[in-house]
């Protein structure tokens, strides 16, 4: 269980996040949405341990998060794959740091390559890959460390619509196959409602929880689920929440 209590983060006089309390049970798929500036990404970097809360605590399985570690895999929007490593060596990075036999490492890398559809590309360099393929490398690399929580920071934000839908189906399948807790930041409400079991809406200025919604849709969703009336209703509800806390252009 990932548990945040009264987490705040300030940068000087600016409060990016104020008094966030959330409990994310094991295996949950949680989506964080909110207008830009609501501190979604800040929250994710706190969960990753890349920055520390100004106050409050973050616990993962009862132990406090004090820094980054392989129990919380992170995928950036940019992917941040190692350009100088082939696909398989990217995926194997975390495993290289552990005391594993070559065969054991290889067996695991092979599984994650297959799971993300990268087996045929294993010897390619990132510069030879498309944006979607690169994102799959980043996901496989994070998963190979068997994290308790997978943190996704707008992972599909830079992809075209078709690739994005492929990736949504992929991440759903990975989530079902591995049972990993997923916390995903996105600005795409449709994506959040489609993927999440739960959608948390953040409000800006200061970043805080504005709404915490449960997605009551069938577990066996596919792309056609996006046309169901209950899907559309929930999507509209979340969009209203996001808009309500967004400071638009004042005339």
């Amino acid at each position, binding site marked *: 269980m990932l548990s945040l209590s009264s987490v705040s983060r300030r940068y000087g006089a600016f409060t990016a996040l104020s008094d966030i309390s959330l409990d994310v049970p094991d295996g949950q798929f949680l989506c964080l949405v909110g207008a830009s500036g609501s501190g979604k990404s800040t929250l994710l970097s706190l969960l990753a341990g*890349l920055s520390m809360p100004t106050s409050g605590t973050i616990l993962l399985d009862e132990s406090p998060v004090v820094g980054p570690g*392989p129990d*919380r895999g992170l995928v950036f929007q940019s992917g941040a794959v190692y350009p100088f490593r082939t696909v398989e060596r990217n995926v194997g990075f975390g495993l290289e740091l552990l005391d594993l036999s070559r065969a054991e490492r290889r067996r695991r890398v092979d599984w994650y390559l297959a799971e993300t559809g990268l087996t045929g590309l294993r010897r390619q360099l990132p510069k030879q890959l498309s944006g979607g393929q690169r994102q799959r490398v*980043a996901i496989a690399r994070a998963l190979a460390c068997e994290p308790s929580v997978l943190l996704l920071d707008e992972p599909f934000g830079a992809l075209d619509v078709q690739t994005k839908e492929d990736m949504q189906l992929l991440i759903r399948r990975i989530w079902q196959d591995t049972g990993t807790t997923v916390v995903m930041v996105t600005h795409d409400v449709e994506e959040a409602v489609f993927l999440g079991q739960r959608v948390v809406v953040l409000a800006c200025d200061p970043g805080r929880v504005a709404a915490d919604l449960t997605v009551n849709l069938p577990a066996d969703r596919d792309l056609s689920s996006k046309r169901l009336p209950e899907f559309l209703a929930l999507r509209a509800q979340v969009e209203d929440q996001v808009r309500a806390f967004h400071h*638009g252009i004042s005339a």
Partner: protein
Amino acid sequence: MTTVVDTPPARPDWPALPRRKPARRAKVWAIRAPIPRPARVALIACSVLVPLVAWVAVSAAGAVPEQFLPSPQAVWAAGLDMSRAGTLATDIWASLQRILIGFGLAIVVSVPLGLLMGGFRAGQALFEPVVGLLRYLPASAFIPLLTIWLGIGEPSKVMLLFIGTVFFNTLMTADVVRQVPTALVDVSYTLGARRGEVVRKVVVPHALPGMIDCVRVNAAAAWNFVVVAELINSEEGLGYRIARSQRFLASDRIFAILVVIAVIGLAIDIVLRLLRDRIGRWV
């Protein structure tokens, strides 16, 4: 608290903007655009042939005394002469050896130092002020001091090369290291890497092609300094041979040695470029 844009004021009825005629697109001199192959070949040929032809023409016309501008034939003959006598080989080796030691030492010091300055804010704070200052001291101004400290033998020459290249190579290496994306460092920590592992497995491999480029650029400076160092006092070396030839007004020999220096410099450049391209295949 939703704020919707109010009806904006209608745009005033300005006169239509004047339109400029579209510019004709340049074929050869378009900014950054590739050029036709024939144009490329012609330009490269010009770059080499024009100075060469001018040299041949001027010396053949006898417009300039042979002592000032020897003919290409005379230069070729002088070069052949030196290489037959064996002095050319010993001179090249003597200069090359100084470069290997002096510049090699500079690389050994500047790469870790650059890594420290580019990879760590603490390293930057600690070293950048002094290295940034020392870089502005002209290496040739150290010659008198080096002679006092180390005498007129090999150590002072090697030291001059070292001083002349170490600071630039450090600062350039630091710049390359600073260009390693922070996201790569962050993501490595989330994959369980420790600080040392991030340096070894992420920062260094990412910076390596750039580091080789720094060495390539500074190798040219090393050639400058080795000649300067040998002008002072030595028994062999390409710079020494130039100084000695001057005493006999043998400008044909000086020209021949300059050609040799240029060719060796180019060869080093090409080798380092190939190495960079091989190591940096991923770029």
